[in-house]
């Protein structure tokens, strides 16, 4: 395995990604890549082929109030490379990356469970963590209120 420094990783990423992408180094060992939803798959392919990324740590999804943000955290050669993409609230879908990174399986199911973001192309999007008969919506959305009133802080 070649051991690139942060800067070199950043270079490689910058050379290979599309025009709608920005690469920044937020602090040592943390690289943030922002891509449009459409080029997510392409970026993932570049990670897998050019950087031989294999370790997907996790996927974080979050509700900003206006859009959904999805962050894919990879651990590549000593740095956390985060791919950030987003989708509008009225169309909460992204392409599934399970075919490139099988370890995304559980994380994409979880994302569907708690925020209702659907990974298109995921082979089986069953419930993962919420109760089987859960029907009270998506708890991690910002406008979500539990049925029994407010949560006690």
């Amino acid at each position, binding site marked *: 395995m070649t051991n690139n420094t942060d800067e070199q990783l950043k270079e490689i990423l910058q050379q290979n990604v599309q025009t709608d992408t920005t690469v920044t180094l937020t*602090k040592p*060992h*943390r690289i943030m890549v922002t891509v449009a939803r459409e080029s997510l798959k392409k970026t993932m392919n570049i990670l897998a082929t050019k950087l031989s990324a*294999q*370790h*997907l*740590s*996790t996927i*974080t999804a*979050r*509700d900003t109030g206006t859009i959904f943000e999805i*962050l894919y*955290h990879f*651990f590549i050669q*000593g*740095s*956390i490379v*985060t791919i950030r993409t987003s989708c509008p609230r009225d169309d909460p879908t992204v392409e599934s990356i399970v075919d490139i*990174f*099988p*370890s995304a*399986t*559980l*994380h994409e199911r*979880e994302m569907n469970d*708690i925020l209702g973001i659907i990974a298109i192309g995921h082979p089986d999007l069953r*419930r*993962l*963590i*919420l*109760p089987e008969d859960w029907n009270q919506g998506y*708890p*991690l959305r910002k406008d979500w209120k539990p049925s029994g009133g407010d*949560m*006690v*802080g």
Partner: protein
Amino acid sequence: MIWLANVKIPIGPQHPALKEPENFTITLDGEKVVDADIRIGYTHRGIEKLIETRNYIQNLYLIERICGICSFTHTQNYVQNVETILNIQIPRRAEYIRTLFLELERLHSHLLWMGVAGHEIGFDTLFMYTWQDRELVQDILEFISGNRVNYAMNTIGGVRRDISEDQKKKILETMIYLEKRAAYYKEVAVNEKTILARCQGVGILKPEIALKLSAVGPTARASGVDVDIRRDDPHAAYADTPFQVITTDTCDVFGRFVVRVLELFESINIIRHLMNNLPTGEIKAKAPRKVPEGEAISHTEAPRGEDIHYLRSNGTDKPERYKVRTPTMANLLSISEMLKGTYLADVPIIVAGIDPCMGCMDRVLVLKEGKENQPGYLLDWEHLRRYGIQWYAEKGGRIQ
């Protein structure tokens, strides 16, 4: 003969808001496992949502209670994240004390695992031995922090309690004893027939697959994947602590056993190094209550592997989004991979092999195919464990 088995195994809560106890649906062909599917979420306590409703100080105590075994790792990640956003430098002494706690935690967690693994294969003597030694580590933890499990040591900007000369002496003394014990366990691990018979060649996880499924921690290292966050992305005081990353290439439960035993030595050495080189000075930097807008990602090497947290703040005194991914979650996919093609009798030790905090037990339900969802017979974890032990006893007569 085809059996359809539905095996329910809830495994202690490691993940906060999510996961565990888990439920494995195991499809059997005779005695062989053909497929394994996981259903988790029995201890989903909604922590990620709760975190958004509490302030940064309250969250310290909530995040500590994500897991009762690696409680310090979780707060370590949390404070690292908050400190990154606040951009404060914490004192060296505090970094050393944090590292000390991370390593003590690894010691007690690995000893605990060896006991549980021994129990699963019917080797209860090992359980009694390792848990007895684990008490010594617990004593140190209690001596320093005042609590055995949730130490409440970490705080934003440093640690809450200092280490006195007395405590240092006691820690070093205990390490001498523990090193002797670790040497004994090493002996046991490679010579004891029970362990060899039940662990060698069981629960194979090939390196390529371990990489592909993003396995972490000792599970990955036992498959020859050379990964350790402590070395690859040093946090706390690991950057100036010498240690080795242990890997084996046996790819089975035995390998996981060996990796953990050898890591005991590494932890003991790290603790010695920390205690002998403890810098003097402050243990806490001042931190404001409000955290400016920003985001941070932090990961640490928990006893079970990489533990990664993500924090998004919005300028108030409460986080906007907090995400936790615990090592067990990362290793879940690997379990189903390991289970395929093994015998039902090996299920307990394979599942225990990734160290999923087997604190609890539950029912294991085996369904017979053709009878329309009618339970063939009801098995609980305890029965499955006994079944495994007996099965081996009948087969080889080696055990018990």
